C-alpha cells in the first residue's frame, strides 16, 4: 500500500483522483463479490472462503509493508476466523458477510477515533509531563472560575443552537415548500453552509464591528442602532450577551443544514394524509402539528442530534471571533489552547467533560433506536 501510494503521489494531482478512486472501487467490488458468494454451500465455495480467510489478512499485512511473521500471525487469525465462520449457527459465510460489511469502517474508527478517545480518558489523569495526578486536572477545572464558565457556555450553546436552527429551518422549509422559486430560496439559506469559517468570521465582523459614535459605523448592527438614535454597542465584549451574538453565527450556518434535511423529509410525508386531514376540515396549523410533524419526527431527531453535537464541538467560530476572551470561551477552544501549551492532561480533562455532556444525547438516541427496532 505504501508503495502504491508512493507511486501515485508522483503523478500529477488531477491524474491521482481517478486512479485512487478506481483502485478503491476495485477493492470494494472484490469485498462485495466475496460477500455475495460467501454463504453458498458446496466444497468449492468452502474452499474459496478458506483461501480468502488466509489470503486476505496476509495481503493486508503485506500491503501495510509488515514483517513476515506478523503475516503468519495474520494467517492464524484467518484460520480461526474461518473455523468460527464455518461453525456459525447462521450457516457458513454468515460471519464473513458481517465482517466484510463492517470491518473497513470499524477498523478505521478503531485506529482514528476509538483509540484516541480511550487515550484521552487516560491522559486526563496525568499531568502534561506524564506523571499520574489522579483527579487533579478535574479539580483544577472545577475550581477555576474561567474553566467553569467555559463549561456553562458550552451548555448554553447546546441549548440554543439546535432548537433555534431547527425551528428556523423547519419554518422556512414549510413556508417555501411547493412555492415558486423554491430552489432559489433554498440556496439563499444554504449559502452560509458553503462558506468557510474564516469567511464567516469576516462576514460577521462587518455586522458586529463598533466605531465611536462620531464616526461612520462599519458594522451593520451598530449602524441600525445609530439610525434609531442609540449609542453604538460593543457586541462581542459584554458578557454574558456576547456569547449569544456568537451563537447567532452558528445558528446562521446550521439553519441551512436543518432546512435542507427537513425540507426533504416534508416531501416524504404522503400527500394522501395531508389531503385526508384537509377533508376533515382542519386548518393549516393543525395539519402541520398533527400530520407533518409526526411524519418527519425521525428526521427532526436526526437534525437536532447532529446540530447538538456540532454545537458541543463548536471551535472555529469562537476561535476566530473572540479567541475565548470576555468569557466567551467554550470547551473545544479551551481544549485546544491547553493542548497547544503542552498541558495535555488539562486538555484531556476538558475533553472528558465534553464526553459526559454528550451522554444525554447518546442515551436518548439509543432509546430511539431500540424503540424503532421494536416497531419493525
Amino acid at each position, binding site marked *: 500500500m505504501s508503495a502504491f501510494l508512493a507511486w501515485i503521489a508522483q503523478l500529477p494531482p488531477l491524474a491521482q483522483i481517478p486512479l485512487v478512486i478506481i483502485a478503491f472501487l476495485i477493492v470494494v467490488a472484490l469485498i462485495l463479490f466475496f460477500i455475495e458468494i460467501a454463504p453458498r454451500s458446496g466444497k468449492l465455495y468452502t474452499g474459496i472462503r478458506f483461501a480468502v480467510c488466509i489470503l486476505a489478512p496476509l495481503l493486508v499485512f503485506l500491503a501495510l509493508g509488515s514483517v513476515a511473521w506478523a503475516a503468519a500471525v495474520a494467517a492464524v487469525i484467518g484460520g480461526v476466523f474461518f473455523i468460527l465462520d464455518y461453525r456459525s449457527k447462521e450457516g457458513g459465510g454468515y460471519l464473513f458477510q458481517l465482517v466484510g460489511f463492517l470491518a473497513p469502517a470499524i477498523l478505521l474508527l478503531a485506529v482514528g477515533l476509538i483509540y484516541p478517545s480511550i487515550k484521552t480518558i487516560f491522559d486526563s489523569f496525568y499531568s502534561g509531563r506524564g506523571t499520574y495526578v489522579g483527579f487533579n486536572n478535574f479539580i483544577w477545572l472545577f475550581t477555576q472560575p474561567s474553566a467553569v464558565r467555559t463549561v456553562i457556555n458550552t451548555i448554553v450553546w447546546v441549548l440554543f443552537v439546535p432548537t433555534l436552527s431547527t425551528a428556523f429551518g423547519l419554518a422556512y422549509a414549510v413556508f417555501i415548500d411547493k412555492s415558486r422559486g423554491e430552489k432559489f430560496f433554498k440556496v439563499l439559506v444554504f449559502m452560509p453552509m*458553503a462558506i468557510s469559517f474564516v469567511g464567516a468570521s469576516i462576514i460577521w465582523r462587518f455586522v458586529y464591528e463598533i466605531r465611536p459614535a462620531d464616526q461612520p459605523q462599519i458594522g451593520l448592527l451598530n449602524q441600525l442602532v445609530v439610525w434609531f438614535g442609540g449609542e453604538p454597542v460593543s457586541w462581542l465584549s459584554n458578557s454574558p450577551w456576547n456569547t449569544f451574538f456568537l451563537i447567532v453565527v452558528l445558528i446562521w450556518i446550521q439553519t441551512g443544514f436543518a432546512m435542507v434535511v427537513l425540507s426533504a423529509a416534508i416531501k416524504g410525508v404522503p400527500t394522501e394524509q395531508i389531503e385526508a386531514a384537509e377533508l376533515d376540515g382542519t386548518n393549516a396549523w393543525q395539519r402541520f402539528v398533527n400530520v407533518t410533524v409526526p411524519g418527519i419526527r*425521525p428526521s427532526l431527531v436526526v437534525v437536532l442530534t447532529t446540530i447538538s453535537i456540532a454545537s458541543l464541538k463548536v471551535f472555529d467560530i469562537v476561535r476566530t471571533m473572540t479567541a475565548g476572551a470576555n468569557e466567551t470561551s467554550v470547551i473545544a477552544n479551551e481544549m485546544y489552547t491547553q493542548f497547544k501549551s503542552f498541558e495535555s492532561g488539562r486538555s484531556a480533562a476538558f475533553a472528558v467533560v465534553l464526553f459526559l455532556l454528550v451522554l444525554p444525547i447518546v442515551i436518548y438516541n439509543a432509546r430511539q433506536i431500540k424503540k424503532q427496532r421494536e416497531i*419493525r
Partner: protein
Amino acid sequence: MSAVQPIDLPVDAETRRQLRAGEAKVEAPVKRTKRRLTSRGATIASLIIAVLWTTPTLGLFISSFRPAGLVTTTGWWTIFQNPGFTLDNYTDVLAAGNSTLNLAGSFINSLAITIPATIFPLVFASLAAYAFAWIDFRGKNWLFIGVFALQVVPIQMALVPLLSLFSRGFAIGGTQIFPGLNAGGSYAQVWIAHTIFALPLAIFLLHNFISEIPREVIEAARVDGAGQGQIFFRIVLPLTMPAIASFAIFQFLWVWNDLLVALIFADGAVAPMTKLLAEITGARGQDWNLLTAGAFISILVPLIVFFALQRFFVRGLLAGSTKG
C-alpha cells in the same frame, strides 16, 4: 421508521421506480392545491428569513470589491455615497502563494483532497450502515450506539495519535507491524484522516435511510436468490442514492472548507486553498481584507456542486424510498 407509513405492498424495485415516476407526474395538480394553502403571512415570514440570512453575505460580497481604505472606514451599505470599485482584492488573492505553491495549484489540491475524501467515507459508511440495518447479530445496537457516540470525539484529540501512526508506524512490542505511511507530501494522509472523521456521522445518517427500506423489498430479493452483496449493490444503493448524494454534498463542503485537518496532514506542495488563504493576510493579519475575495473564490466550487446535485435534494434526503 416513521410513525405514519402508507401501506407497503411487496413489490420489486423496478415497479417501485415506475410508481415513483408516476407519483412525480401526479404532483402537478397537488401543487395547485398546496399553493392556495401557503398564506400571505408565511410568504412574508420566509422573505424575512431569506433577507436576514443573505444580508451578511451580501455585505461581504460588496466589500470584496471595495478598496481596503474604504472598507475599514465606511459601511458597505454606503457604497453609493462612497463609490469605490476595485478588483485589487481579487487580483491579489489570485497572485497569492509561496515558493512551493500558487493559488491555482492549491485549487487543484483542494479538488484532489476533497473528491476522494468524499467518496471513501460514503462507500465504507454505506457498507457499515447496511450491516447495522439488515444483518442481525448480538451486540448490534450497542455497537451502533458506540459508533454514533464517536461523533463527539473532537478532532483535535485524534490528530496526534493519527499523525504518529502515519509517520512512525505501528509496532507491537518492538516489532514494526506497520512501518508508517511515509506519505509526507502526498494526499494519502489527508484522505485517510478525513475518511475516519466523517464515518460516525455518515453511518448514523445513512443507517436512517437504509433501515427505512421496506422489509418486503429485501425479502423479495432474497427469495429470488440474491445474496447480501447483490442486495446491497442492486437494491440498497439505488434506493438510498438521494441520501447518499445529499450526504456527499455536506461531506464535500466540510472537507472543502476544512482547515484544521489540512494544517496537520497536508503540508507543503499538497496544501489546499483554505490553508493558502489563511496565510495570505500578511505576517500580522494586516491584509485581512483580501480574505473577502478569498472567501468568494473558495465558495464557487461548493455552490457548483450544490446546484449540480440539487435534484437529489428535491427528491429528499429523508424521503425514504417508498414515499412520493
